C-alpha cells in the first residue's frame, strides 16, 4: 500500500514527566508527508527522542493527538497497536539489540509481529524467514556474521544489525532516534549512508533525529528544529545554510543535561 498525504499528524502534543515538573514537549504541531526524509535537530533534551517515542506509543501524550498512518496512536491497544508498530520501524541510539542472541536471531526478531499460528517466534522461525534475514544481513554487509553473538560486534556493526532488524519488519515509516550519536564520525557517515540508502530504495518515510548537521543537510528533504519541546524550525533542506541550522543549537544554558530516556518512561509506566 503506497500512502499519499501525511504519515504523521501531531496536533497540540504536550508531554509532561514527573507530574508536570518536566515538560518535554510543548504544543507541537507537525505533519510528515509520505515518502519524505525528515531530520529532527535540536539540543540534547530538546524533546527529539520524546517526540519519536510518541509515534509508536512508547510514550503517551499528556494532552494533544498523535496520528500515525491515519490512526490515533494513543487510543490503540492490543492487536491494533501491534499492527501499527509493525508498520513503524524504530532505530535506537543505543542500538538496543539483544546482546546474547546471534545477529541472525536479532534480525529475525523484527519479523515477530508478522508470525502467525503455531510458529509463534518462541522457539523457531520458518526457513524462508531465516533466508530473508540472512539476505538483509548481507545487505548491511554482515552476511558472514550471522551466527556470531551480537554483543561481540562493534558499535557500528550493531547498529547495522538494528537497521536490518527494522527492515525485516517491512515498515512503512522508519523512526531513527540519534542512530549514530554513539559512533565516531567515519562510522557515523557509513551507517547513515546505509540507513538512508535502504530507506530510499524501499521508498520508506523516515524521521530521523541527528546531531550531524552536514549529514542532515546532505540527505534530508526537510529539517525540523526543536528547542525546549517546541518546533522552532521547519523548512525544506534545500537552500538552508549551515548557519541557519546551527542557530537551533545555540545554547542558552551552557550546562544543559540530557535526561535518561528510560527513567521517565519507567515512571510513566508505573503510574
Amino acid at each position: 500500500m503506497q500512502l499519499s498525504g501525511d504519515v504523521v499528524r501531531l496536533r497540540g502534543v504536550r508531554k509532561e514527566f514527573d507530574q508536570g515538573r518536566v515538560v518535554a514537549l510543548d504544543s507541537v504541531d507537525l505533519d510528515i508527508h509520505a515518502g519524505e526524509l525528515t531530520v529532527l535537530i535540536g539540543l540534547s533534551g530538546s524533546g527529539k527522542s520524546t517526540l519519536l517515542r510518541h509515534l509508536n506509543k512508547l510514550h503517551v501524550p499528556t494532552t494533544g493527538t498523535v496520528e500515525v498512518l491515519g490512526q490515533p496512536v494513543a487510543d490503540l491497544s492490543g492487536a491494533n497497536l501491534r499492527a501499527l508498530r509493525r508498520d513503524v520501524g524504530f532505530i535506537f541510539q543505543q542500538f538496543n539489540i539483544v546482546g546474547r542472541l546471534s545477529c541472525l536471531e536479532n534480525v529475525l526478531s523484527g519479523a515477530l509481529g508478522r508470525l502467525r499460528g503455531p510458529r509463534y517466534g518462541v522457539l523457531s522461525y520458518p526457513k524462508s524467514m531465516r533466508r530473508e534475514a540472512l539476505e538483509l544481513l548481507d545487505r548491511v554487509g554482515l552476511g558472514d556474521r550471522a551466527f556470531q553473538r551480537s554483543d561481540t560486534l562493534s558499535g557500528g556493526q550493531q547498529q547495522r544489525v538494528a537497521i536490518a532488524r527494522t527492515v525485516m519488519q517491512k515498515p512503512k515509516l522508519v523512526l531513527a532516534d540519534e542512530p549514530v550519536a554513539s559512533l565516531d564520525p567515519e562510522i557515523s557517515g557509513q551507517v547513515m549512508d546505509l540507513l538512508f540508502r535502504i530507506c530510499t530504495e524501499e521508498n520508506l518515510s523516515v524521521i530521523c533525529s541527528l546531531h550531524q548537521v552536514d549529514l542532515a543537510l546532505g540527505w534530508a528533504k526537510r529539517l525540523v528544529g526543536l528547542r525546549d519541546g517546541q518546533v522552532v524550525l521547519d523548512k525544506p533542506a534545500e537552500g538552508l545554510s549551515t548557519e541557519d541550522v546551527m542557530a537551533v543549537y545555540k545554547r542558552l544554558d551552557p550546562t544543559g543535561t540530557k535526561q535518561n530516556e528510560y527513567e521517565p518512561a519507567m515512571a510513566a509506566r508505573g503510574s
Partner: protein
Amino acid sequence: MTLTEKPQGPRTSTIPPEMRSGSLRPPLPWRRKVLLVIAAVYAVAVVWAIGRTGLSITALFEGYGDFRRLLDRMLPIEFRNLSQIIRLAFETFFMAFIGTAVAVVISVPLAFFAARNTTPSVFLSGPARGFIVAMRAIPDLIFALIFVRAIGIGVLAGILAIGLSAIGMVAKLYADAIEQIDEGPREAILATGASQVRAILTGVIPQVLPSFIGIALFRLDINFRTSTILGYVGAGGIGTLLQLYLSGLQYRKALGVVAVIVVLVLAVEFISAAIRKGILGADPHSHKRLSHRIAGLFPGGKGRGNVAAQAEAASRASFNRETLRPPWTRDRRRMAIFGWGSLAVLVYAFWSTRLSPVRLFTSFGEIFVVATRLVPRDLSWLSSVVVRGMVETFAIAIAATTIGLLISFPLAFLCARNVAPARWVYYFGRSLLVMNRALPDLIIAVLFVSAVGLGPFPGVMALSIGTVGFATKLLADSIEEVSQGPRDAVTAAGTTRLQEAFTGVSPQAMPAFVSTALYIVDINIRSSTILGIVGAGGIGFSLIQATRTLNWELVGGILILVFAMVYSIERLSGWVRKQLL
C-alpha cells in the same frame, strides 16, 4: 563534507558460500554437544528420580485426599497454652540471635584470614577457606542432631548448630566484602608507618562495616527461620512444641504453632529489613537480586545522596568545641541505638535462656572431642542402607528441583514488576511468595509426612513447594534487572507480550536463570539430606538412627558422603555455568 556522496562500487555478497543454501541452523560446537549430552542425562535422571520417589499423577491425587483429611483434623486451629508458645517463640528468637552473634564473632577473624588481600599468609587463607566451605556444606539440622547427642538436649545445641552453619555463609560474604574494598585508605595509613593490624582497623573496618552489619542482619532472618525447626530434634525453641503435638497426633495445636511461626518469621523479616534500611539506607523493598542487595550495601555503591545529606547534617549540628566529640547527627544516634540495643538484646538473650557465656565457650571443647570421634577408621559403616539412602536423597533433590523450577519459570514472569501483565498480578504474586518463604521447608515436610505418611514422596512435595517460593523470587528479581532498551526495540516491532518475553527478556536474563537454577540444585541436594530426619525420605533417616545409637563413625561417614555429593554437584554446576554464560 562529502561523506554522503561517496561513490558506491559494485557490492559483493558477504554471505559465506556454505550458507548460500541449506536450512540456516546455527553451528554446533563441541561444548554445545557436551551440554546437550548433560541435558539428556539430566532428563533421564529426572524420569528415573520421579519413578524412584514414587511420584505419579495418581499419587498426587491420593496425596491430595490425604491432605484434605489432615486439614480436617487440623481445623479449626487451636491456640492452647498461648503463653507457653510465646515463651518458646522468644526462646527461638534468642537462640537465633545468640547463634548469629557466635557466627559473626567467629566469622570476622576467619574472613580476614580468608580474604586474599588481608590474609597474613597463604598457609592460613587455605585452611580458613576450607573450613568455611565445610561449614556451608553441612546442613544446620545435622549439626543440631550431633550437638544434641554430644552436649545434651536444649538451647545450647541449637545455638551452636545455628552459629556454626551460619559461618559458612557469613564468613564467605565477609571475605568477599573485604576483597572488594578500596585499597587506597589502607595504603595511606601504612604509609604513615602504622602496623598491618592498625591499618586494617583504621583503613579496612570502616569500609566493610556497613556490609558486615547488613549481612549479619540478613543472616539473622535466615537463622530465625531455621531455628523454628531445630526443636524438632531437641535443640530448643518452638520446634519442641511442634514435635510434641505432632507425635501426640494433636494436629489442631500443631497448626496453631505453625501459624505462630509464620507470623513470627514474617515479623522478624520486616523488622530486620526496616533496621537495615534505617541504618544502612538500603531500601529493603528494592527488589534486587540477593547478591546485588548485599553489594548495594557497600559504601560508595548506593546512598551517595545519603552521604551528602549526612555531611550536611554534620556541618549544621552543633558540637562541643572543647571536647571535640563528633556531633550527634541522626545517623550517629541511629547507629548508637542499634549498637547498644543489639548488645542489650544479646545480654538479655543469655539471661533469658539461662545460658552462661562460659558454658558456651567450654562447649566448643566438647564439640572438638565429638568431631574427632566422627572420623571413621575404616569402611565398616558403609552398608547398602546408607547407599540406598544417598541414592534416594539424590533422587528427591533432582525430582523436587525439576518440578519446582518448571513451576517457577512461568511464575517468575508474573512476579516481575517490569513484565507482569498488571500491577495487581505482581503484588498478588509477590505476597504469595513471601508467605511461601515464611514457612520453612522442613515444616512443610513435617506436615506432608503427617498427611501421607513416611517416605520420599512427602519429601519431594515439600521440597518442590520450597523451591517454588525461593526460585521464583530469585528469577523474578533477575528479570527485573533486564535492561529496557532491547525490550523496547522488540516491542516496537509489534510483538505480543509473550513474544517479547521470549525474545526481549529471556535472552538477557539467561545468565541469571542458569545461575539460579544451578544454585537451586545445590541447595536442594543439601536440604534433601535432612528431610529424612522428619521421615520424608533420603539419607537423613539413617543419620538420625546413627545419632540415636551414638554410632559416631556412621555419622561421620554419612557426613563425608554428603560433603562429597554436595561438592561434586557444585563443581559440575560450576562447569556448566561457565559453558553457558
